[in-house]
């Protein structure tokens, strides 16, 4: 049981790459916090810094208010599950589980007790005498988790632990990880590039991009109130449509430009008229989630766009849309509606202005 704090951490590698820039993060005691972001965003670096596998360039890391910045990995009492599991190939499952306990110089009886406890918890009892090469991917994953939990660490680190599994196994193990974490209540830092994993597992989720923390919030809020255009585009599948836009003051009230047409801001979406007024005449961005852009009857269409492409997902479809003269996709709509419109044809669309998000020219969200 422990809390973790990254305080103004910077990490620059020998080749000059700045992996983390002024990174601040607090992980609460017993919390499962997910670091998510595209590859190269610094999420794995953050994890490796906490593990002590890389040294910090600037700032400090605390576990339970103890500064661990200069401690070796073995002094930090943390456990880690690696992407490729990193099981010791020459040891049986039992010896793999036992290894960290041997390093702690625990007695034979204590070791046996803990190994059987972990093996039972993770359904590994029948596999104890096998070596890793004789196990399936899911079983190896469980052994890796077992090796991490036997030593009862202060903090549990997971570096993309599901990315080597097939989709079905990933879903199953995802559930097992969540259940295990709830049961053991170990502070856990979980790294993934998969937003579904992040949203389903994380008590809170930290979205990272280019070495910086973009937003730290509960999953629902990341979706409902993204802090900037990056988070808006990253969370959701596909992410929010973000278009360059402008605001103008018309006789009917405030209006916003979308694909060359002006619409009444109406109920002002996520921002109020007062906060939007300050941006009249400036370049802004407007955001609309694919699931909020709906097919419409031609009579009530607010917008008519060329259907560039359609992707069939089975239970729903993704419509790739653009202005008549544009060759590229500008907007994506997502709906269960089956289109009878051919590619290249005009698709009538509607949306509720409540669903509109506004971002300033720097990409920061404007909320009331």
């Amino acid at each position, binding site marked *: 049981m422990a809390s973790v704090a990254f305080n103004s951490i910077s990490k620059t590698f020998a080749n000059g790459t700045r992996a983390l820039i002024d990174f601040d993060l607090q992980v609460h005691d017993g919390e499962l916090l997910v670091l998510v972001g595209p590859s190269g965003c610094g999420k794995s670096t953050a994890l490796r810094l906490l*593990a002590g*596998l890389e040294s910090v360039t600037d700032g400090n890391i605390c576990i339970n208010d103890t500064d661990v910045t200069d401690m*070796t990995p073995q002094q930090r009492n943390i*456990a880690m599950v690696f992407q490729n599991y*990193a099981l*010791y190939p020459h040891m049986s499952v039992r010896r793999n589980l036992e*290894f*960290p306990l041997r390093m702690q110089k625990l007695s034979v009886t204590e070791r046996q007790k803990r190994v059987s406890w972990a093996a039972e918890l993770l359904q590994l009892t029948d596999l104890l005498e096998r070596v890793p090469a004789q196990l399936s991917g899911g079983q190896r994953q469980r052994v890796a988790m077992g*090796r991490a939990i036997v*030593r009862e660490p202060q903090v549990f680190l997971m570096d993309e632990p599901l990315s080597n599994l097939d989709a079905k196994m990933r879903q199953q193990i995802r559930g097992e990880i969540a259940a295990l974490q709830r049961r053991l209540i170990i502070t856990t830092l979980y790294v993934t590039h998969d937003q579904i994993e992040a949203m389903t597992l994380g008590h809170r989720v930290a979205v990272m991009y280019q070495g910086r923390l973009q937003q730290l919030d509960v999953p629902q809020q990341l979706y409902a109130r993204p802090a900037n255009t990056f988070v808006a585009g990253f969370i959701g599948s596909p992410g929010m449509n973000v278009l360059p836009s402008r605001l103008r003051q018309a006789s009917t009230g405030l209006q916003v430009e979308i694909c060359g047409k002006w619409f009444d801001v109406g109920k002002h979406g996520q921002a109020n008229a007062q906060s939007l007024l300050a941006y009249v005449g400036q370049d802004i961005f407007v955001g609309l989630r694919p699931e909020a852009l709906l097919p419409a009857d031609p009579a009530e269409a607010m917008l008519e766009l060329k259907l560039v492409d359609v992707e069939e997902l089975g239970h729903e479809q993704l419509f790739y849309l653009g202005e008549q003269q544009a060759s590229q996709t500008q907007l994506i709509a997502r709906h269960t509606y089956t289109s009878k419109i051919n590619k290249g044809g005009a698709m009538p669309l509607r949306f509720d202005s409540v669903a509109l998000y506004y971002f300033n020219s720097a990409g920061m969200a404007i909320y009331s």
Partner: protein
Amino acid sequence: MQARMLATLLRYLGLVILAILFIAPIMFMLSGSFKPDAQVLTEAGSWQAFIPSQLNLENYHDVFARVDFLRYLLNSIFITGMVVLLGLVVNSLAGYGFARLPWRGRKLMFALVLAILILPLEAIAVPLFYEVTLFGWRNTYLVQILPFIANAFSIFLFYTFFLGMPHELEEAARIDGAGILRTFFSIIVPNSKPVFATVAILTFLTQWGVYIWPLMVTSGETVRPLPLAIATFYTLPPLQWGDIFAFGVMMVLPILLVFLFFQRWFIRGVVASGIKG
């Protein structure tokens, strides 16, 4: 179809010729060791030289009568064994240090080790001789073992192998609470059998045949290895080819045993490290 069969045929023919070329000298030695000296010489120019026409053990008997073969054999086994064993420990640790541990001056030191690769023993034999004389080490096992434990080529082989190992295993071990040495001996060594076998065999082969150095620093049979003993068969009369062959057969046997024991890892090691014999 026929062209492919022809190609296979030609390939096998080439392999058979190569196999004969390689095995012929050994057969020559083996069959000669069972023949009286006169017969060895008369048959030397014909195919009969490769056929063991009789099983006469007199030459072997002669070898034991002329020198204390067992003494030399034990000396060779002890010296070579120690060089191989201690060499594996020292050179693997050095290779690991160069490949994996971050320390100041690592690149410079490694460049120096590589530079030693091109330095033959003959170039340093005389100063080394003065040094060991100064220490009073002549006529000992120590003087034949110590200078050959650390070996630049072995370090290089270990270095390349460790460089190619995934980092995760070591990182997992470190997080699990193992220090550097513990990680090395518990995790790295058990997963590096190919390179250990390769280095063991190559060191054994080199060390088993050393001649110049023991000749310089030893006198008398108490600590001398086999190559010096077989040399006396050429230098001291009578010059008996049958005896020399019998000696040769007994000297080669341990090499074959070692190779057979290590070969399955050796082949993997050669493939993994990219070296060629």
